[in-house]
């Protein structure tokens, strides 16, 4: 970059037809497809180097009814997704998803993705939680996998293709605001980590693909980077968040650390055992047992611990048992998780039981979109022109109240692709409009406020309090008393957040500054989740209210839309799109 002042200013303003925020699976897929549209310029902005994105941590597989191992059909996959989502899934979205994910998996293979192979040389598939044949009869091999690093392979393959396609990247640029005017989006404003400079990215279409927000909990499988930035920015900009109360806890996180051990382990035959050695899932899900959906397994685990059947000196964890599985299968199909257990807990899964506990894993809710990934601003599906969202940050809603394992990777490739196509189509038909005056003002104010903060509060202490209390009051089981308490705690934390500041006064790689800003984003994400959870007086999918134990379809077969309203929140609703499958009690 030139040292000349004028050029530096010029360089901080960028213009692309399509801007993608986030460089994980959804973002890279979106960029690839947007760039294929003739004459459309595309850039990807990410706060990390693309290959650091958390898609790379996904392990078990991507579900698609290829039928390579045994008979399978997209109708069965759609049904499982809808039932797994406890009927909050929009059925038109699930049906289209189950068809398109087959094409998308073949496409990844055509891009060179190294799937494991069947003896005939086809893409290998294995069993996964909640995926069944003939509408629930027994488990089916639907997860297309590459050892236990399927997400890593998807991320690498898409990044490799983006090099081939010469995609423009702005790496380590942290988006801190969206440019909104008259209800339309015209790009984003970002902070450059290396220099501390603020850049304007003017775009005709903006695609948000920034992933999740698991760092609001103490025990999580999520990377440090997953702080729900864009869910907060959209919320601050007056857009709603859909269904934030539905947050998934993955049953098999390493004890205390939360590091993920894939459900694919159970797909290969691993068993969950309580402190007495009992295979307790037989009591909770007699048909598919350990391969029941994640919300049910996590609840069963909590109950085992609560009723005194946990393992260990404090009886506060459970065991994943792989010892009966052939050592060769463990080493070849599950090498990474085997290594995690060995390194972090000093336990060898080939010979010993692995201590596990549920770990905060995935936001089913997010920025609401149409089936075509256009962001909407209300329950009447009013479209926000120029704004798209895909992947975990978005809510289409494919996952409903509980996501099935493998459907996150499917979501990325199906809706990432769609977002790229739709955004490019929109951009090609539009011309650039003038940016509003003072386009960087909010971002500068946000940065300056933290820079000049009084430092009466430490970011790390507030974050730890947030994570501890969210874990206590708003995780697997919830009650009005706990959630109300958490509302008060969050209000207090928001107040105390005004006292944060930074020691680092520098401009280059001021990671302390960004951690402080990220905490502000996380607090908004927690607020969305807790208010929506308090409001929903029923139990459905991952949202389990001990004071309202039943699912209530008369009152609550609807999506939450939560808005920021002054210092408080406002809640509205959106109908669930039903279809072929009548809501039924959910048993496995």
């Amino acid at each position, binding site marked *: 970059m030139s040292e000349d002042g004028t050029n530096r200013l010029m360089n901080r303003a960028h213009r692309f037809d399509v801007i993608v925020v986030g460089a994980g699976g959804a973002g890279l897929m979106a960029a690839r497809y947007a760039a294929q549209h003739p004459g459309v310029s595309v850039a990807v902005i990410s706060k990390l180097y693309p290959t650091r994105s958390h898609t790379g941590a996904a392990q078990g597989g991507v579900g698609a009814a290829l039928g390579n191992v045994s008979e399978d059909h997209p109708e069965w996959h759609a049904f499982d997704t809808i039932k797994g989502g406890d009927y909050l899934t929009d059925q038109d979205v699930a049906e289209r998803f189950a068809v398109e994910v087959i094409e998308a998996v073949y496409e990844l293979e055509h891009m060179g993705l190294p799937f494991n192979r069947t003896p005939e040389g086809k893409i290998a598939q294995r069993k996964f939680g909640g995926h069944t044949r003939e509408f629930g009869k027994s488990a089916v091999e639907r997860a297309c996998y590459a050892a236990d*690093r399927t997400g890593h392979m998807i991320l690498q393959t898409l990044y490799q293709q983006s090099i081939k396609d010469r995609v423009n990247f702005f790496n380590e640029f942290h988006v801190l605001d969206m440019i909104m005017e008259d209800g339309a989006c015209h790009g984003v404003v970002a902070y450059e980590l290396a220099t501390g400079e603020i850049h304007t990215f003017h775009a005709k279409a903006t695609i948000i693909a920034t992933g999740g927000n698991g760092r609001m909990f103490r025990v999580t499988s999520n990377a440090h980077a997953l702080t729900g930035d864009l869910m907060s920015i959209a919320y601050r900009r007056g857009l709603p968040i859909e269904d934030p109360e539905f947050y998934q806890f993955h049953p098999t996180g390493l004890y205390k650390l939360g590091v993920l051990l894939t459900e694919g382990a159970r797909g290969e035959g691993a068993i969950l055992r309580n402190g007495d050695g009992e295979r307790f899932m037989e009591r909770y899900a007699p048909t598919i047992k350990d391969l029941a959906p994640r919300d049910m397994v996590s609840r069963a685990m909590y109950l085992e611990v609560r009723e005194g059947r946990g393992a260990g000196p404090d009886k506060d964890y459970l065991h994943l048992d792989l010892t009966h599985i052939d050592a060769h299968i463990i080493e070849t199909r599950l090498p990474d998780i085997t290594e995690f257990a060995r390194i972090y807990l000093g336990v060898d899964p080939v010979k010993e039981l692995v201590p596990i506990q549920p770990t905060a894993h995935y936001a089913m809710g997010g920025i609401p979109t149409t089936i075509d990934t256009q962001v909407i601003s209300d329950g009447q599906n009013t479209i926000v022109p120029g704004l798209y969202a895909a992947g975990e940050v978005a809510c289409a809603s494919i996952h409903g109240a509980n996501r099935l394992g493998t459907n996150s990777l499917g979501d990325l490739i199906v809706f990432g692709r769609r977002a790229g196509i739709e955004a490019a189509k929109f951009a090609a038909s539009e011309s650039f409009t003038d940016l509003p005056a003072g386009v960087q003002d909010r971002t500068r104010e946000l940065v300056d406020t933290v820079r000049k903060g009084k430092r009466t509060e430490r970011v790390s202490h507030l974050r730890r309090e947030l994570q501890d209390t969210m874990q206590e009051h708003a995780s697997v089981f919830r009650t009005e008393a706990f959630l109300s308490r958490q509302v008060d705690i969050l209000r207090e934390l928001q107040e105390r957040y005004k006292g944060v500041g930074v020691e680092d006064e520098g401009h*280059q790689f001021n990671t302390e500054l960004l951690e402080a800003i990220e905490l502000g984003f996380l607090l908004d994400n927690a607020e969305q989740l807790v208010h929506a959870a308090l409001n929903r007086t029923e139990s459905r999918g991952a949202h389990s209210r001990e004071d309202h134990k039943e699912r209530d379809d008369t009152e609550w077969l609807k999506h939450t839309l939560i808005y920021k309203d002054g210092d408080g929140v406002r809640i509205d609703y959106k109908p669930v799109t039903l279809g072929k499958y009548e809501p039924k009690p959910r048993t496995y």
Partner: protein
Amino acid sequence: MQINVKIKRYNPEADARPYWAEYKLEARGSDRVLDVINHLKWEVDGTLAFRRSCAHGICGSDAMLINGVNRLACKVLVKDLGERITIEPIRGLPVLKDLIVDMEPFFDAYKAVMPFFINDDPPPPAERYQSAEDRAIFDETTKCILCAACTTSCPVFWTNGRYLGPAAIVNAHRFIFDSRDQGAAERLGVLNQANGLWRCRTAYNCTEACPRDIPITRVIEEVKRALLWRGA
């Protein structure tokens, strides 16, 4: 236990040259080095700068020189290092701030070997077939997370920053030995150049540094043989 941590610090906005900072703190044997430096950043000195994300050895952000060996800070535990821990930035890439180095030269070398699938035949309606045996040939090199631990442990790379380095060769291997790929000749041509494959002196540092246990020295030898036998 009480541990003593020495970190090579450098702030381009304040320091003329790097210096060693020492910290004494309480840690548990089961703590990752990443937990230790997070603790320092969060409780002791907020200006300490380093990259991190996944915290379990998958994203490749936090390769550092720890007690003289390149490793991921999130994949090495205090109990495996003892009471004295020394942390420096990985070598051979420009230091930008504290433990953060300029990764661009590393990614440029990676991009030079065309690390993407090349096959211009029209794809079939379903997947291309590949036998489990053919898939197994390049399994090891699909594990690379681009953390740069290997390349920045290589003595040839330290003295010649234009050497493509082990990570680039690993990623070339991943495609050269993929039965579905058609770009091997071109990639071998790149590797046959002056700053390519033949600069490797089999020091073995890369293999020892790899946090993903990729047998890099063997991989490099396989590519050398391919170059000899197939030609470029």
